[in-house]
């Protein structure tokens, strides 16, 4: 291929353009974040509590509304979309939560199927008329995330933390997302389960060729599993690069002081 027939660089899957969020005027939690997520793989956002990691992620699917700047998803400006357009944006973005956020009283399989809600009219939801393909795929996903199909009809509340997070991941993937957000997905789990969940995320990101944006404060896990690390401090990006480039200096800057190590 000659240079002049080459396509222009593909639009970033996700772009933050000078994004600002201030819950109180004059006190920005996000202070002009500019980032491009162009490639599939794990992007870990690290930083101390209260530094705006969650806010950043929640701005993407607009569980939080930004105050300024822009967010582009696959080239489309989604900063101010509303109503049914917002719902169409949300269904392209899977989300995994720290406390799993499953509907506790629903069965495991119905929690997985709820990933399809953005694609279904209300009357079908009311009658629980999920398509046969969706149901078949939900069972496949249960296996893909390492859960025995025997769990399908149990209530979500009967599962352990690690199992619930697997269901949460299956629900996110059920959406067929272009992007997955994960807000501290391992912070409520024990170290061993955390590793399992991270490995599952890596595998899913690779298999489905989608970027996974993960907030975390465990630097060790981030270094081990991320393809790219973004360090945040007080609402700004202070490091952006591959995990091997992050140094003790960076970490001290991100976490302030050395006592944490």
């Amino acid at each position, binding site marked *: 291929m000659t240079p002049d027939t080459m396509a222009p660089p593909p639009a970033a899957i996700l772009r933050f353009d000078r994004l600002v969020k201030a819950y109180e005027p004059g006190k920005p939690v996000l202070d002009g974040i500019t980032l491009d997520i162009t490639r599939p793989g794990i992007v870990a956002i690290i930083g101390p509590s209260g530094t705006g990691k969650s806010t950043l992620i929640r701005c993407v*699917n607009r*569980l939080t509304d930004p105050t300024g700047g822009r967010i582009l998803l696959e080239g489309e400006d989604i900063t101010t979309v509303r109503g*049914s357009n917002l*719902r*169409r*944006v*949300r*269904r*392209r*973005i899977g*989300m995994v*939560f720290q*406390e799993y*956020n*499953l*509907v*506790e*009283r*629903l069965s495991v399989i*119905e929690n997985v199927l*709820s*990933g*399809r*809600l*953005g*694609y*279904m009219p*209300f009357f079908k*939801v*009311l009658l629980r008329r999920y398509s046969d393909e969706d149901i078949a795929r939900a069972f496949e996903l249960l296996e893909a995330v390492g859960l025995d199909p025997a769990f399908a009809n149990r209530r979500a509340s009967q599962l352990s933390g690690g199992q619930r997070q697997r269901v*949460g991941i299956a*629900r996110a993937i059920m*959406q067929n997302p272009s992007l997955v957000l994960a807000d501290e997905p391992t912070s409520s789990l024990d170290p061993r389960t955390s590793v399992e969940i991270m490995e599952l995320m890596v595998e899913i990101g690779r298999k489905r060729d989608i970027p996974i944006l993960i907030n975390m404060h465990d630097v060790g896990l981030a270094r081990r599993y991320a393809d790219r690390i973004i360090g945040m401090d007080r609402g700004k990006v202070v490091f952006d690069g591959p995990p091997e480039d992050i140094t003790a200096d960076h970490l001290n800057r991100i976490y302030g002081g050395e006592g944490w190590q």
Partner: protein
Amino acid sequence: MSRPALHRQAFPPNRGKQAILSALIVYLVYAVLALDVSMARIVTGIGNAAHFFDRMFPPNTDPSKLALIWDGMKQSLQIAILSTVVGLSLSLPIGLISARNIAPAWLGGPARVLVMICRSFHPLIVAILFVKAVGFGVLAGALALVVATVGFVAKLFAEIVEEISPKQVEAVRATGASTLSVLLIGVLPQVLPRFAGLSAYQLDSNLRNSTIVGIVGGGGIGAMLFTASQRFDYDVVLTIILIIIATIMTLEFVTARIRKILL
């Protein structure tokens, strides 16, 4: 430099609470005095009660009377079941809308006012109004109990809805589900079991109230109870009371069974 002595108190006195408690005690003493409760009155009262009970036995078991009473009881049951079904179907949406974490203020405000109005009158007063509006009979009684059901269930249901976990709702919203789907999948599963509990309680309550709306013309067994006691037919009164007790106990048994299966 010595530190200033800290004034430390683990349980600082709550003046407001003390004032309310003292006022309550003063009022209770006043009320007892004002009512002129005396030993003599209690003693005659017990005597009257004994006489009254004496005239109740044996209960009247005349078949024609029994058939009549059973007709009244059937009417009462109809009132109870009808008002519960209609009242609950209204309470579910009204209660959801009244919850502050679900609906915007322009929708929730009027809903809360409606519920408050439903609550502010005793079912008997509402029954009197409906008897005037739609005439004597079952319909008036049933409508009165629909109002009572909405007043009670919608209010408590709204409070239950306000206590749900927002996290589960948020996760469903994040999938791109529409508002109604979010309610259906994210909110209702969290609150339906408790709504079912409220419903069972309200059915019991409506059963009890359906036996009394008859006194003001709302249909059912209450009218017979009232007439019988006005005519000093205490043996009939006892039969009616026994039938009411038996019916309510049977239905409580049945509703308990239904709850076990459903929940």
